[in-house]
């Protein structure tokens, strides 16, 4: 009665229509979107293609750079000691939704910085995350990090090298003993070499000077050179390729793109596809799945052979081997 006395009928209709309209509009209104920020920790330039693959994978999954996602990446750290401050900065920053760490040393720095925090981490280009205690189990990471491992293709790579170059007896391996991936890979290569009856000539190289010396002093009695997943050594790949070609030695490398740079053979992961694979895990994490519940995945392996290099060093690769190669550089 009070309403009827105080309000005109047409006002009631207008108010009702406004209420109904506002209800409909509020139901249809789009939710505000949050721009995701991903911090990238990388040790060496050689892994930049992994980041490129990651960004491409994210784009395929619908994350438009600049609109849906922003990457904070100041380039490769260069040396291991510079990784910790970057990892700590990303951990402290509230706007960083996810950290992408590339390589084992990068992930070690990130693991130390994010310990006892809820910062989520996706790693890539890590040889064995269980051995370096990033995760307790591949199928159930259980912590704040998950990612892609590139697994144990080292022994098989050595076998492929012996099949491509059948008479190999002694292999030269320069490596950085401070790089956990390199150390782990060396263990696998040692086992395979023992099985295949091959001797290893090891050369520790902890810094640029030492790696330069290792490249300039390749022993005379070796039949081939093998590079482990080792960022320091990989950063001098051009010099190693030049030295191998000069000595007409076969050079086996961990990744296909390094074969494109002039190495003879590789059996291992592909940087770009590795990045894409990591993007798929990052997508799950960003959608709310805990890294603890996302199993660590293993990369695919590809056999790459560079026929141009083979020709330069005077090596005839049989068709039966060539036929099995996934990538052939002609």
């Amino acid at each position, binding site marked *: 009665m009070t309403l009827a006395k105080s309000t005109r009928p047409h006002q009631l209709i207008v108010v009702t229509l406004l209420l109904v309209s506002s209800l409909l509009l509020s139901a249809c209104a789009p939710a505000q979107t949050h721009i995701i920020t991903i911090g990238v920790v990388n040790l060496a330039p050689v892994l930049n293609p992994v980041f490129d693959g990651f960004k491409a994978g994210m784009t395929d999954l619908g994350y438009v750079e600049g609109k849906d996602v922003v990457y904070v990446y100041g380039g490769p750290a260069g040396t291991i000691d510079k990784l910790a401050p970057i990892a700590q900065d990303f951990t402290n920053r509230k706007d960083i939704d996810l950290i992408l760490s590339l390589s084992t040393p990068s992930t070690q720095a990130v693991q130390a910085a994010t310990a006892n925090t809820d910062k989520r981490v996706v790693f890539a280009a890590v040889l064995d995350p269980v051995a370096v205690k990033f995760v307790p189990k591949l199928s159930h990471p259980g912590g704040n990090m998950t990612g892609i491992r590139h697994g144990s293709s080292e022994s*098989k790579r050595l076998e492929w090298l012996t099949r491509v170059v059948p008479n190999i007896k002694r292999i030269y391996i320069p490596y950085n003993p401070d790089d956990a991936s390199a150390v782990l890979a060396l263990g696998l290569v040692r086992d395979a070499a023992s099985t295949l009856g091959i001797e290893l000539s090891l050369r520790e190289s902890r810094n640029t000077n030492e790696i330069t010396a290792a490249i300039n002093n390749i022993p005379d009695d070796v039949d081939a050179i093998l590079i482990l997943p080792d960022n320091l050594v990989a950063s001098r790949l051009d010099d190693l390729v030049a030295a191998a070609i000069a000595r007409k030695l076969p050079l086996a490398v961990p990744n296909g793109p390094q074969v494109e740079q002039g190495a003879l053979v590789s059996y291992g992961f592909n940087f770009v596809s590795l990045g894409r694979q990591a993007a798929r895990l990052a997508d799950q994490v960003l959608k709310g799945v805990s890294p603890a519940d996302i199993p660590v995945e293993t990369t695919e*392996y590809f056999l790459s052979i560079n026929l141009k290099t083979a020709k330069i060093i005077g090596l005839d690769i049989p068709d*039966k081997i060539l036929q*099995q190669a996934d990538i052939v550089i002609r």
Partner: protein
Amino acid sequence: MRNSIRSQLTIAFIGVAIGPLLLVGLVLAWQSFNVQQQQARELESAVAQRVSTRVDAFMQRLEGELLVASKDLRYLEPDQRVYTLSSLPSYPQVFQELTLLDGDGNEQIRLSRLSVVTNAKQTSHSQSPEFTTPKNDNKTYYGPVQFDEETGEPSLTISVPMFNKRTGQVDGVLVGNVRFKEIWDLIASIHVTSGESVYIVDANGRVIAHLNPSVVLRGTHFDVPAQDGITTGLTKTNVVLASSTLHLNAQTFKVVAEKSVSEALALAIQTVIITAVLLLAAIALASVQGFVAARQLVRPIQSLASTAQALTFKTEAFDPALLTDIIKRDDELGQLAKVFQNMGVEVQTREQNLKQQVQELRIEIDDAKKKQQVAEITETDYFRELQDKARKLRKQPKNESPEKA
């Protein structure tokens, strides 16, 4: 007043306005929901069937590769056998291991995608079903799905018998260990819409292939319901689910396609929401309209009632002008008010006339009463005696004093 005309009219108005709309809305929504549900089920069933057919064809192709290779292997030198096996199109990306067994189940050759195999590592398979089944039953063997302890990746063994044409006996078996990665890629290549997923479950209920490899690697289990329809899906949400059974000799798999109910029945849900919103809007408008209409109907009646009440108790209180607004209405209430106003005015006029007449009658009665009273006084003996005495006094001489008289 719950039983007031206004309340009754308002409720009746809303009922009349909303009733048919509600009925039509409910029927439409129900029909739309049923049709959509049926279509969604058929769609998911078609997807599951399609994937099942493709996986079956894929496995048949792998079996075919092994069968073709097995025909020539016996006539080749060991080195050529290795080359033939390593040249199989599906090695090493699909067949992660290829093993050639002799007639006693001993390894002759083993190729591995991941590990270095030497003669010292070659073992006997004489008691394993991948050897005994092709050897004894002369047919292809499909093993159960096995999972890598370290990575959780599933794989399956296919083995085919190698027949000696001269004796007709099985004198060797070719074994291939199949990775599911290619089947994952096959599922990934299936175009799925938003909220839809396709996966394969083995006989133990473990998911062995999914668009998202994490689901497989973490060892997810799912009991596929016997009936297709709306049920709880792999992600514990309500889905429209359909499955297709895939038989690979003794092994049975279920290919499942599911789509979230919210996506699969989006149109039906939208219809229900729109109907509900329209109903709410209609109820709101009908309430306002009903209220206004009831008020327009009841207020004149209230005015008439109060005016009638006033007329009942005191005709002077009746004010015809109060009905002027109602009289302006061009409806029955206007007519009623006009008649009532005329009646009221007439009643008022008559009462005034009657009062006037009563007044006049009262005056006449008073005159007659006075005359009667006078008459009653003048007719008494005492008054007559006084009249006589007065008359006598008037006849006496003017100089005589009354005492003398």
